[in-house]
Every structure is written in structure tokens, then in C-alpha cells.
């Protein structure tokens, strides 16, 4: 049975009106219908965090929300926050420390880390690890990620002083 829903939402600031399959997840909608393939599909049950996007200002699992639920929502993906420059420093810090191996988790890592940094100005390394625990995949590259997030936290705090 294919049921459809009409949704009006903004994605990265752009107004979108689409008819979506009721069963379609947000991340499939972003990737397949809108061509925004920066959000990745990994485990499809909320464990890996590769599909992380922001809905109405908070990070969510793109695989655990239906596109049909996003009517009226403001959705932001890694493409959007990259274009606005919001996380340019974080991206540079990741690059400088080679804070990735295959990079599949990186968009989700960046969005998740940005939420932590927005809330807690200089989190401890433990707090950083705990916060990104929902984005662990299967490499061992996390030490450099923690370094990068910590460095950006300190740099941003320094700028504010």
C-alpha cells in the first residue's frame, strides 16, 4: 500500500513542497528526492549516527523520523551548515588533524559536535566522548576527533573573551 503525504518545509533555508511516500524516512527523502547525499545511511536503526541532521534546531536521526513528519519543519543538513560557514572552523580542525578515516561518519560527527559546542562552551574530553558516542562507527579515529572538537571549543571561547 503506497500512501502519500504533502509536505511543506524548509531545507537549508530553501522552501520545499513535495509529495512524499508516507513510509519514507527523512534521510531517504533528503538523499533520493532532494539529492542531498551528505547525510549518510548507515545502520537504519539509530545506532550509527551517520544520518544525523538538524530539525528545528536540534540534531536528530534522519533514519528515525519520517519525511511526512517534517511538514512545517526547518531542516538543516551538512550541505547547509557548510555553505553558511557555521562550522567552517570545525571542518578545518577536522582536516588539520586528519580526524577521519573513511569519512562516512564525518557529517554526523560535525553536526553532533556543533550542538555540543553551542551548548557547552568548553566541554571536557569526557563530555566530548560521551556526546559523540552516538556517532561511533567502526574505525579507531576518534582520538583525533576529540582533539579537533576540543581545539575548536577553546578557540571559540578565546574569541568570545
Amino acid at each position, binding site marked *: *500500500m503506497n500512501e502519500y503525504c504533502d509536505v511543506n518545509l524548509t531545507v537549508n533555508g530553501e522552501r520545499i513542497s513535495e509529495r512524499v511516500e*508516507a*513510509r519514507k*524516512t527523512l534521510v531517504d527523502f533528503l538523499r533520493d528526492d532532494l539529492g542531498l547525499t551528505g547525510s549518510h545511511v548507515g545502520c*537504519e*536503526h*539509530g545506532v550509527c*549516527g551517520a544520518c*544525523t541532521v538538524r530539525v528545528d534546531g*536540534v*540534531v*536528530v*536521526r534522519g*533514519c*528515525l*523520523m*519520517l519525511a*511526512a*513528519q517534517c511538514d512545517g519543519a526547518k531542516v538543516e543538513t551538512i550541505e547547509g551548515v557548510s555553505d553558511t560557514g557555521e562550522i567552517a572552523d570545525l571542518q578545518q580542525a577536522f582536516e588539520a588533524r586528519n580526524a577521519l578515516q573513511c569519512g562516512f561518519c564525518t557529517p554526523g560527527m560535525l553536526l*553532533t559536535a556543533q*550542538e*555540543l559546542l553551542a551548548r557547552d562552551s568548553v566541554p571536557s574530553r569526557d563530555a566530548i*566522548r*560521551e*556526546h559523540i*558516542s*552516538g*556517532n*561511533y562507527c567502526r574505525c579507531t579515529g576518534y582520538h583525533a576527533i576529540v582533539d579537533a572538537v576540543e581545539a575548536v571549543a577553546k578557540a571559540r571561547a578565546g574569541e568570545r573573551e
Partner: protein
Amino acid sequence: MDDAVRLLQEHGDGAKILAGGQSLIATLNMRLSAPQILIDINKIEGLGGIALKDGFIVIGALTRHAEAERSNLVAKHAPLLAKAIPQIGHPAIRNRGTIGGSIAFADPAAELPACLLALGGEVEIAGATGKRTVKADDFFRGLYETAIGPGDVLTAIRLPAATPQMRCGFGELARRHGDYALAGLAASARSEGGKLCDVRLAYFGVGLTPVRPRKAEAALANGDIDAAVAALDGDLDPPDDIQATGKVKKHLAGVLLRRVFKQMVEPRA
């Protein structure tokens, strides 16, 4: 709300309530569940919010974990929840998952059902015949089975607000922060003259529902932690699962009891 109840009755078993979706949509993705219709309650007014009313903390079903985690009311009047919620899933899960959804789904390895039971809370349910309140001790019936019947929607939970004498403790053991626990324990009691009374322990991840180990509770009320740990042997019978054998879980239950007891008897900071 009336529409949701009506739709539920109309579609019977083929319908499922969609709240935060953090368990439900995963089961859809894995093809473990295939409802014909999803009733999204996210935009129903009046199902959210946290309030202190008549000695109870009342938490609306649609309250997200993240909201409760940062709530001053919860921190002050439901400290057990404040300890437990950061252990639930990950930040993105807590941004979306709801308190009511977690209780209604009643995953035996989940934190909140055990907290509700340990606190002796209540569940508010709306159904075709009106509203009713069910005590936590009568709410959890079996694996993913609760007092929520066909056509019922959980609307709020009520937790007795903490008193100065109230003590609580929480612990869980998981392989990775945010994973489902191998075993976990939520506990509450009243401190009176240096002793604990009205001890309520609720284990999760060790049975088909959150489990109260009654003999261990009695031993703890006598102040005998060693006897309480020993009593777990008769109180608990955890089945083996993909994460650990029942024997390991039983051992961990004892480890957790000692840790949680320590939290409860330590002088408060």
C-alpha cells in the same frame, strides 16, 4: 486526542501510535513491525510539558527526553530521572524520543520504565471510556505488554515529588555509553533515622519487564547490603540474551546493587 483514540479503535491492531519514533521507526526499518497505519500524535496540543501538581511531578507524554534532562523541576523533584536520562541513547535520540513513548513501549532494557516503577509512579491513560490512572506496579504486564489496551493512549506519567528524606540511586552497565544496558538498576527509598525504608528497587535488562527484587528490598531495609546481594539469586532469573548470559547479568545485578546502595546512603552533597 479524540481523533487519535477514534482512529486507534477504527484500525485496531493495524494501527500504531507514533510519538518520538526512536524505537518504532527502527522496528519499521528493520521490518520487525508493519502497521497499516501510523497515528502521529506529535502535534496534539496539551500532551507535553512538565509540572508540579499536588505533590506529583507530572510529565506529559510528548515531553522529549532532552527537555526533561534540562528541566529544573525534574532535577529538583525527580532526581532519579535526572540521573537516568543522560544514560538513555545518545543526544540525537534524546532530542526526539519521548518520555511517554518509552513508558508505553516498555522495553525491558529501557531506563524509564524502571524509574517509574522504582518511584512508585502512575500512568495516565486516555481511552474510549475516558481517562484512568494506573499504578506502576500494575502497569507492566509482560514483554512489551502494559496496561495500555486497544484504543488507549498514554497521556502523562506522574511521579511522587522527592521529599528531603527521599534517597535515590541509579546505575547501569553497558558496553558503550548510550547502548542498551546489560543490566541496570533504578532505586528509591526513604531515609529515616539512618535507615532506609520503603525501599523500591527496579532492575532493567534482566527480565521481560522491569523487575522488583522483593527479598533484596527487604534485606536493604534491614541495612544488610550483603544479604540483599545474596537475595538477588532468588529474586532474579535473567534470561540469556545476545549481550550476556543470565549468569553474567545476575552477577552484574549484584555489582549494581552495591553501587546504587552507596549512592543512597552517602551523605548528600
